[in-house]
Each structure stands twice: as C-alpha cells, then as structure tokens.
C-alpha cells in the first residue's frame, strides 16, 4: 500500500465548529457540482486544500469536456464567516477508503467539523411540475432527531439490490459514523427526463435546506430566475410538441409511460433544452 500522504494544505483555515458540504462532480443532473459551486460563489469560498489525485484517479491521459482538457480535482474551500467547508471532487476510481478518510482527516484536524452533508440525486418518475422532495439518510438516530424540524423525508428503507453497489455517499457516511462525525446524506429525486440536464429546482431544494440549517442567509433570487426560465422552456416544449405534452400530462396524472415512451421523452426534452428554442 502506498504510504504517501495525499493532502496538501495551502492555508490553515480558522474554524472552530464548522459544517462540511460535499459534492461529487459527475453525479446525476450535475447536482453536487452545481450546489457546491453555488455555495462557493455566494459565500465567497476560498480554496485552502486539496487531495492529490495520483492514488485515487486514473491518470492515463485527460478527459475533454466542453472543448477543454479536464484533470481530476478534489478541493476544499472555506467560507469562514459561516463556519462552512465545501469539498468538491470527482468520484475516485480506486482506494476509496483512503480517499474518504483523507477527506475526513482534513475535516477533523484542520476544520474542526461538527457535522457533514453529502449531496446526491436519484431518478424519479414524476413530472417536473411536481414539487421536489428532499430525502435524508443519517448515520445516527441522534442526527435523525436533530433533523425532525425540517421539511425532509427521513424514513427511507433501502437495501442495495443484487448486482449493484452502495454509493460513495453511503461509504462516506459509514466512515464518518466510525469516526463519530454526525453525517447526513441528502437526496433529491429528479424527473428522469432531466437527469442528464441541470435541474435548478433540485439545486434550490438542497440549498434551501442548507441555508436554513446552517444559517447562511443566501439570496436565492438568481436561482429563482433560473427555475422560472427552466419552467418556461419546458412549457414551450410542451406547447410546441403535443407528444411531449401528452407524456408529461400522463406523468402528472401518476400514469406510467412505457420504456419506449420514456426514451422518447428524454430524447425530445434533452434535444429541446440543448438546442434552445
């Protein structure tokens, strides 16, 4: 096993009892990245540390996204005034236990983190016009109790189905539990036809909870505008394509679509949102 210490601290943060919010780059609807970027932008997050990639990511070249060469990044930001630490990273492809412990080493030893929140999205078969829900999975009964005052679904039952593996968020929550760090995994179900696109409503749902819970006093007017614009775009797609309207109508009436219809709806919505109207 490698004995290299993978953490680089640029500047020691001055935090006494902080909260950590973690988002992974490649998740559904780009939710983790969008939420963590939003927090950093609004709360003036300052980068202060990173985890070196060599033990955790395949470095056999670079990926190209949006015409730009990408490189795996795992960075910590601090929003000192709000006692908030933001961690933004791609999902590691190896040495997960070491990677997640490195994240918690920074959180515990450099940020005195008292609790952590992970961000995740899951597919929903409901229409985009239905309000987004927020589900929470916690790593202790005490943490669940603390969350009782918030608008959250807190009674999820789940077991990994055969052939699948737990999420990185579940792995992190478990390690946090072993280290006595209260942890909350936040999940927003996203309409399946927006899973590959961005969903401003889902972002707002998570951000609103964090805002309330961590007392961040964020002005969401820009995000509200994005939500309005997205809803208007989807409304235009419905009025222009009766087939899309029919599918979404049926979802709004809690009717299931066939697999073929699902595929068609996804493709038409994605094409419409990508090309603009």
């Amino acid at each position, binding site marked *: *096993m490698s004995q290299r210490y993978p953490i680089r601290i640029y500047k020691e943060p001055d935090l006494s009892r902080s909260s950590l919010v973690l988002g992974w780059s490649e998740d559904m609807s780009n939710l983790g990245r969008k939420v963590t970027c939003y927090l950093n932008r609004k709360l003036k997050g300052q980068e202060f540390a990173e985890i070196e990639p060599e033990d955790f990511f395949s470095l056999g070249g670079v990926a190209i996204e949006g015409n730009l060469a990408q490189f795996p990044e795992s960075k910590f930001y601090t929003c000192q005034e709000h006692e908030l630490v933001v961690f933004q990273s791609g999902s590691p492809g190896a040495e997960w*236990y070491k990677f997640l412990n490195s994240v918690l080493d920074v959180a515990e030893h450099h940020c005195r983190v008292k609790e952590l929140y992970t961000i995740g999205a899951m597919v929903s078969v409901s229409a985009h016009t239905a309000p987004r829900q927020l*589900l929470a999975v916690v790593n202790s009964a005490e943490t*669940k109790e603390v969350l009782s005052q918030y608008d959250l679904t*807190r009674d999820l039952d789940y*077991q*990994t189905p055969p052939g699948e*593996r737990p999420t990185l968020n*579940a792995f992190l929550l478990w390690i946090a539990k072993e280290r006595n760090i209260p942890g909350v995994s936040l999940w927003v179900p996203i309409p399946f036809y927006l899973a590959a696109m961005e969903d401003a409503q889902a972002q707002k749902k998570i951000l609103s909870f964090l805002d309330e819970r961590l007392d961040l006093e964020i002005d969401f007017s820009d995000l509200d505008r994005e939500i309005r614009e997205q809803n208007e775009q989807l409304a235009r797609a419905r009025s222009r394509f009766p087939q899309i309207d029919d599918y979404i109508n049926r979802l709004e009436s809690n009717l299931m679509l066939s697999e073929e219809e699902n595929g068609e709806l996804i493709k038409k919505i994605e094409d419409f949102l990508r090309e603009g109207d």
Partner: protein
Amino acid sequence: MGIKLYQEPQIENPILIAGWPGIGNIGIIAVDTLRGILEAEEFGEIEPWDFFYPRQVLIRKGVLEYLEFPSSKFYFKRTKGEDIIFFIGEEQPTEGGRLYAEGRKAYHMANLVLDVAEKFKCRRVYTSGAAVALTHHTTKPRVWAVPNSESLIPEITGYRNTVLMSDIEGRGGHGNITGLNGLLLGVAKKRGFEAICLMGEIPVYLQGLPMSYPKASKSVLEVLNYSLKIEANLDKLDELDQKVERRIEEFYQQIPLEIRGQLDRLKQVTDVQPAEPGPITEEEEKRIMEDVEKFFKKRGGGG
C-alpha cells in the same frame, strides 16, 4: 489495516487451504465445501476496508445501519490427520477494472494470508482454481496440479486423476495461473512455503458463463481427500452438480448444431490416459476454439 484474529487456535504444523472466486468458482466451492463438511471454526479475518469497495448498504427508517464488505476469513479444524487452516476470500482485490487480482493489493493480500500461515507454522499451502481445457462437460474433470517446488512433483504424480502441466498436450510444462489462486503460489515460494495449486478442468465453452462448475470442484476435493488423508463425504457436491448440469445441458442445446458436433468430439478425451495425445488433432483443436469464440462473439457474451 491488516489481520484480525479472534482467537489463537492450538494447531500443530497445519496445512493452509486458500480459495477465492474465479472461473466456474471451482476453487472457492471446493475449499468452502470442505470447510463446511469439516465444520471448521472461524478464527480471524483480513480487514476489508483497503481492499474492497462495500457491496451492500442497509438503511432502515432513514438511518444507515450497516455497510457490508466482501469478507476474507480464516477458519481452523483439528483433525486426526492434518490440522487445517482454511482461508476463504469472497472477492479478489482488483485494481483498474481488471477481473482478477494483480498488482500491489493482490500482493499485499497474498502476504497477509501467508503471515497467518507463518504465525501458525503451516507446513504447506494449497490453492485451487480452474483449468480451462478442451474437455466435454459430460466427462470427469481432471485436476491440473502446479507445485512451487521440484520436490513436490513425485508426490503429485501419485495423486489419482491428476496431471502436471507437462502432461497437457501442447503446453510443454508451461502455463499461467491468473489471480490470487496463482499469485499465492508464487509468494509462498518467495517466502519459503511449499505450495500446490489444484485446478479442476472446465470445458472451454463454459468458462465465460455465470455459473459454477461443481463437478470440477469435486475432482479437486477428491485429490485433497487423498492428499490430506481425510474422508470427507462429497455427496453434497453431487446434488449441486446435478442442478448445474441441467442448466449446462439447456445452454448446450442452444449452441448451433455444427459447433455442437465439434464439441461432442471432446467426449472422446477421457481421463483414462491423460498424458496421451487425445483423438483430436492440433488443427481440429484450433478450429473448435475458433468456432466457440465466434459463437460467443455473436451471442454477445463472454467466452
């Protein structure tokens, strides 16, 4: 990270038998069946965190209850003959998306297993796996035995239904054992343990199917029974074999008649005189392999 022993069993110069999943799960079924028959007692494990990604999470009423990892456990059994330590790994630690273990993690795990062997002064290590062979599923699988020391060859030649690599036509004593079932043999050699890998034959056309091949596990266990002078009752494996056999037959009937005709000729390769060249010529062997590969490619499955 490392070894966690729950107790220190009083065992004398035991032998260690290790098994991991592999082709047809031949090795692990053999080792785990013997462990079950002998009612070996669990006494330790290799901690999984650094080797494996968890395989299951259980969330109840919103609270994460547990995360389950593939296990790597040690068991022991005192017998009238040999004391035995079993090591059973539910998964091979892989890196970079490979199917079988190789690299740092595999080497590290092999060394941890042998650390336990050393602690209890094991006198020999057995591993077990699969030998992909030009055989037919209706014939009794032979066992290919690969020792890590010259001095073990005379003993192996006394085992029934067992062949050395030099006995396999066209191999000239050479070959390759992938994954930990093979690596452990090499690391044992490096650390001065004598070790033998016993590989049950699996027909070439079954190697990519997601099903076990207990018939070969039984052949391996018969060799272990003989070698360790134990009399483990292997009826349980026969029951499992009958179930699997039905599924294999169903699959076999789906193979196009022309290819099946070629494969049927493999029935003539028996275990009577394993060292002799079979009734299939080299050219025919090549053609069978090509046909089988073509069939699996068309089917879109492994093979």
